């Protein structure tokens, strides 16, 4: 069953959607997290303007992740969402606040401070909730039959809090390196100052989560510390260290785009680590992708759509980014 069947392809597509979401909305949310660090006025406007044209498209990948999970792995969707009820609702409410803040802060100068605070708090809550969600999935959820059977607070553990904080740090670093790329002047200076401490904090967080994970449940231990996982386990820390070192050196360097690319690589390595931990389950340790998969007819029908549409989406998304390429300032693109 381990061959390249439709279920594996769909697992790959969902993983791609989640990864696309993490890196694209990651820097949006990161800028929200860092927002109080920028001076009121032109600096905040510039930070906001660097993402205003693209945030909505970025967030659509979250809908594809959720909708795609329902479509391709309905059983997983039906178990995971009730299990993570509280953090998911918190995430949604956080996204409400930060989403409307993009428009509202311009419409109401008298209350701009309030909407700036809403933008930051919403981004922070949404990010933390996403991190908690990841941790709660990794640590295992209680499943009986075809349903979640645990309590409403099962998700809350030291490990899920650790993953929540880690993701906040990670998105903040993505946001800072995005601003290094897309801005000039004081905002870029602030972003440089934020980036280094965030990088150190993120490397510590990655180490902590990686050290904790194998001891959560037997399977992770086996996957990481026996063949073939051990091959990756040996490489991962070295790769992370190398990328971390390059990233450290690139901050403040002459190539403004480089820190963002290296941060993406750091995220890429972390996600590869997660994939090794979870594969071939969709609910770690409980439900495999094959047990949760939609029937072949659903998979084929959607594969046609995804095969045609995803390349088109990537093309026009790339075009939209290209239209708004280059440095931004507080009043307009030049």
């Amino acid at each position, binding site marked *: 069953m381990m061959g390249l069947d439709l279920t594996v392809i769909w697992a790959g597509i969902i993983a791609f959607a989640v990864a696309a979401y993490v890196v694209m909305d990651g820097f949006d949310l990161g800028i929200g997290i860092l927002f109080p660090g920028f001076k009121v006025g032109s600096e905040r406007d510039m930070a906001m303007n660097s993402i205003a*044209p693209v945030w909505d498209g970025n967030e659509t990948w979250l809908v594809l992740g959720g909708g795609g999970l329902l479509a391709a792995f309905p059983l997983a*969707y039906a178990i995971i969402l009730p299990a993570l009820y509280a953090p998911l609702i918190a995430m949604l409410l956080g996204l409400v606040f930060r989403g409307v803040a993009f428009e509202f802060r311009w419409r109401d100068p008298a209350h701009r401070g309030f909407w700036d605070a809403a933008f930051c708090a919403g981004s922070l809550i949404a990010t933390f909730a996403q991190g908690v969600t990841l941790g709660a999935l990794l640590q295992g959820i209680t499943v009986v039959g075809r349903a979640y059977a645990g309590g409403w607070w099962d998700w809350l553990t030291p490990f899920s809090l650790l993953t929540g904080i880690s993701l906040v740090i990670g998105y903040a670093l993505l946001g800072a390196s995005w601003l290094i790329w897309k801005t000039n002047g004081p905002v870029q200076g602030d972003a440089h100052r934020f980036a280094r401490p965030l990088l150190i904090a993120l490397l510590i967080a990655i180490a902590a989560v990686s050290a904790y994970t194998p001891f959560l449940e037997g399977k992770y231990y086996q996957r990481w510390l026996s063949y073939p996982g051990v091959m990756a386990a040996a490489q991962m820390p070295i790769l992370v260290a190398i990328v971390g070192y390059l990233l450290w050196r690139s901050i403040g360097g002459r190539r403004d785009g480089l820190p963002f690319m290296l941060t993406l690589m750091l995220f890429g390595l972390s996600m590869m680590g997660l994939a090794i931990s979870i594969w071939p389950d969709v609910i770690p340790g409980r439900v495999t992708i094959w047990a949760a998969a939609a029937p072949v*007819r659903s998979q084929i029908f959607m594969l046609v759509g995804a095969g045609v549409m*995803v390349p088109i989406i990537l093309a*026009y998304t790339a075009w939209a980014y290209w239209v708004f390429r280059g440095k931004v300032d507080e009043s307009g693109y030049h």
Partner: protein
Amino acid sequence: MWDALDPVILARAQFAFTISFHFIFPSFSIGLASYLMVLEGLWLKTGNGIYANLYRYWLKIFAITFAMGVVSGIVMSYQFGTNWSVFSDRAGPVIGPLMAYEVLTAFFLEAGFLGVMLFGINKVGKALHFAATCAVAAGTFISAFWILSVNSWMQTPVGYEIGANGQFLPGPSWAVIIFNPSFPYRLVHTVIAAYLTTAMVVGAVGAWHLLKDRANPGARRMFSMAMWMAALVAPVQIFAGDLHGINTLEHQPAKVMAMEGHFDSHPTGAPLILFGIPNSQEKRVDYAVEIPKLSSLILKHDLNAPLAGLDTIAQNEQPPVGIVFWSFRIMVAIGLAMLSLGLLSLVARARGKLYDWPLLHRLAVVLGPSGFVAVIAGWVTTEVGRQPYTIYGLLRTSDSVSPLAAPAVGVSLLAFVIVYFSVFAAGGWYILKLMAKPPQPHESAEPVEHGPIRSAGITPAPAIEGGRS
């Protein structure tokens, strides 16, 4: 305190609240996106600056509406799983792919081109910018197509098989599932409703400013366009609604019985009950004002056609009559009011008094928000009317819920209520503030000093200066 409450009722209340609030925004943005497309198209075709100004005027309102639609819409894509996980597991193989198509063909299209539409005209030029506007407008329609297909399949499920694990599995043909029996009617009725809702809003804003300044060219143009829409589309909508009702009678007769308040069967022609108070205990409509045989005429196109009543439906298969009866009447009454406004505007136009008849303008202002009320009333009619099922006749609402505890659902419902009322009230207030300003001859894209990046203007200045108005 929550333990006394039924988690199923709380979950239903949460879905009803979040979906009703959400649908206010698309019912406006579907129509407004098309209106913007028409305005920009007319501007490109005629070069008349008045259309560019109206485009800028309504684009600001569209941006706020769209943002609220997006954030309330993301909530919906997770409601199915958080509160209705059994439904998601059972129906996922059939409805999941349709919703995935909505994301792939509509949401990305809207979101991807919205940035260019709002901020990009100086970057891409007029033709590409118009293409972006068209893409956003197309996206709103494609989105309606898929999600209404899902809803219609739940109302009139066809083309499925039942799997060994109890799941609904797709049959050999997806076309049968997508174009299920109630879908064409629901799609037409809902999309026209969005156009009418937008026409009422645009007409009210135009009328409001005409009441203060009859000479304002922008107000005149938008009022005229909205009244054409009301006059031409309101009759079409009533006709489409009638066809939808006949389709419902065929597939969901209990819903129509509740809409009509027909507790009893009428073997020789059923009366149309105009008003009354449905009394579900006694199974009759108190204080009924009725027109004999008219219901048979409307539904069967025959005065003496027999119509069955709720007495032919088992008690545990019946929807709640009171809500459905009243929400249906609210919708129909508003539809007739819109038709009247459209006809009056034709009279005014014929007499050359379209811009000089304050009574007409006042009526248009009063009817400004009526589309939203009608749309929500219509959805209440169809959604409450299909109870007690989520998948009609096959999966009961009470069997669809997540393994829920009342406190979790109750607290989250409370949180949604507080957040939605505060956030969306603020957004509504900002929209009203924008509407309160009359359209200017040189409409700025930006109302505040440090605008977002569109401050350079969404239309190149020379084009505007050269335009007539």
